[in-house]
């Protein structure tokens, strides 16, 4: 030990002008700043919205670049065998669809039109893409919503059961079932389900959202089940509902598997928290402990997965809608891709991006609702 008295090892701390005039009295600092603190969340949402818009813009560039760079010729796709060899017809087609311009100028035209709500005209349906999407989106949305609700109810339920019985037989069975759910090829499942329930047993009518010729309910939301309920058309509701059962179940299978697995993991993680032990130590019934104390924190990760699976459901709808002839976006996207119908492909991509952004935003907002830490800081 060699400390000389002259050299204490600690030097003078120099002072500098106080940086923040805010008086940080320790206790109760939440009250005064609670209002100011809600702003960051609103700003966060706004920022996310802005980022979302940029993302959509990026998507249009990406989609545009990809679809226009590929060597396929939309002229061949959209003119018949006869007209193809008619130079006049080809020229007319190109001029009409602006295929002669340079790529950037085509993109610019697309973008300016887009800002005016014009997504171009589909080359296969000869209708404005906007109208096409307007027709197809509700059908797919209805299906996807039904599937996600189904998946949430079953998936979260099974997940909780598995978490609570972890290591015991219900958990093991649920584990295998959920793994099977994420492993089953959806197109095959659709076929098998169709074969069994429609073909062999004749229980379920498939194909279309309503029976042929039936008049859909008034267009309020575009979702037949909801609209028919709103207008009180019970018969139509029954029909729309029964026709949705099979495709929705098939579409939900994968997501049930995913949600079960994540719910289980999230609930298990939550159950391992000290505050759950603390809740038990309060003498609360186990059901309350799980519902109020374990499920709530698990909900954030369940929501994330639900949001992502919902956004990712399009892949499923392409397959399911094609097998079970559901007149939705999936079929439309498939046809558009096959026909290199560029405006339609762009439209679908843009829509998917918007859904992605909206879902993410929604999930973020819901985080705020669920978790006060996010809402308040």
């Amino acid at each position: 030990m060699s400390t000389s008295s002259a050299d204490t090892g600690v030097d003078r701390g120099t002072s500098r002008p106080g940086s923040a005039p805010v008086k940080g009295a320790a206790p109760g600092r939440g009250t005064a700043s609670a209002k100011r603190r809600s702003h960051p969340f609103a700003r966060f949402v706004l920022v996310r919205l802005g980022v979302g818009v940029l993302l959509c813009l990026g998507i249009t560039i990406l989609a545009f670049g990809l679809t226009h760079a590929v060597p396929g010729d939309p002229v061949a796709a959209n003119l018949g065998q006869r007209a193809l060899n008619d130079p006049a017809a080809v020229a007319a087609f190109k001029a009409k669809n602006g295929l002669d311009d340079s790529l950037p100028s085509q993109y610019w035209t697309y973008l300016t039109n887009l800002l005016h709500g014009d997504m171009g005209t589909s080359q296969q349906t000869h209708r404005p893409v906007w109208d096409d999407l307007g027709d197809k989106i509700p059908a797919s949305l209805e299906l996807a919503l039904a599937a996600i609700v189904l998946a949430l109810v079953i998936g979260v339920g099974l997940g909780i059961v598995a978490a609570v019985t972890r290591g015991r037989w219900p958990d093991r069975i649920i584990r295998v079932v959920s793994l099977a759910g994420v492993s089953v090829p959806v197109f095959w499942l659709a076929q098998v389900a169709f074969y069994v329930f429609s073909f062999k047993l004749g229980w379920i009518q498939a194909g279309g959202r309503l029976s042929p010729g039936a008049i859909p309910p008034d267009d309020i939301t575009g979702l037949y089940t909801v609209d028919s309920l709103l207008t009180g058309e019970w018969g139509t509701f029954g029909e729309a509902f029964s026709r949705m059962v099979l495709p929705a179940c098939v579409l939900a299978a994968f997501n049930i598997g995913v949600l079960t697995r994540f719910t289980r993991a999230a609930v298990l993680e939550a159950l391992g928290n000290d505050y759950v032990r603390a809740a038990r130590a309060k003498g609360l019934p186990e059901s309350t402990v799980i519902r109020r104390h374990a499920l709530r924190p698990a909900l954030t990760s369940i929501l994330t997965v639900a949001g992502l699976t919902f956004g990712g459901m399009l892949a499923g709808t392409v397959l399911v809608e094609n097998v079970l002839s559901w007149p939705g976006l999936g079929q439309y996207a498939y046809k558009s891709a096959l026909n290199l119908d560029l405006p339609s492909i762009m439209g679908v991509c843009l829509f998917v991006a918007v859904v992605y952004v909206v879902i993410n935003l929604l999930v973020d907002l819901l985080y705020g609702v669920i978790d006060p830490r996010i809402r308040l800081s």
Partner: protein
Amino acid sequence: MNATPDASLVLRDLTVSYHSPGRPAVRAVAGVDLRVEPGQVVGLVGESGCGKSTLGKAAVGLLKPASGSVEFAGAPVTPLGLKPRPPAQRGLQMVFQDPYASLNPRRKIGEQISDAVVLSGGTRADGRALARELLDRVGLSAEFAERFPHEFSGGQRQRIAIARVLAADPSCIVADEPIAALDASAQASIANLLLDLARERGVGLLFISHDLSIVRQIADTVAVMYLGTVVESGPTDQVWDDPRHPYSRALISAVPRADGNGELPQDLPGDVPDPAFPPSGCRFHPRCPIAVDACADAEPEPTEFLPGRRAACSVLAPALLKIG
């Protein structure tokens, strides 16, 4: 092996800020002067969140100071970028608080210890030999070199971490609460190990802790930190026996003693304020038992009232000087 005499660590008016988006910058260290000589043990104590770790990291170059300077062995310590640390600075090392996080869980401990050798141009074989030697030095079996960290207890891991630091042949070690996560008995043995290093090898030791009693036991000098600033410093026994700053006093009288007397420690109401919104004037004034109105206005200058003893309190300053 012995550190060069000038291998001291000098912090001058060090300020470190954290910037996170959407929040005001947090000045976690707000102007600190500190000096660690070779062979000297300097204790740094303070409540949680007062900026001890921040200071420690800035001292070794893991954080970039907002202002002020850090010097080691006469040369400025450069903040770490993507490039390897200059060899001259490798004599300045750090021991971390959490023995579970400070070892790579997926690499054998022998390998981790020998890194220092390899990185300074030695061969793997040299490194391995040194690792065995150092494991022995910190009181572990040389065979352990082939094992992974998860096979060890907290105390043993902390020894391994120290062995790794020793492999760089340091002349100054910053130890950030190296014993906080350990049992009393393990705490004692790690504290002893570090103390031995300082004594035997002449290594300077900046010993960061929130546990006053252990600092009291091993440090030569102590600095008491409050909300980013050093409020009092001086030789350990003097500060302990005769704390002047009201905060040091509160801190010391809050330590319960295991003497069986049943005395309740004194409490200090309130908490350390959020460093993002520090109180104006003397940072301690909202909790200070002797504060006067003026304390809210001016930040007190540290006064050296006895040789090697300083305190920063404007209320006491005149009295202190008189005593001194």
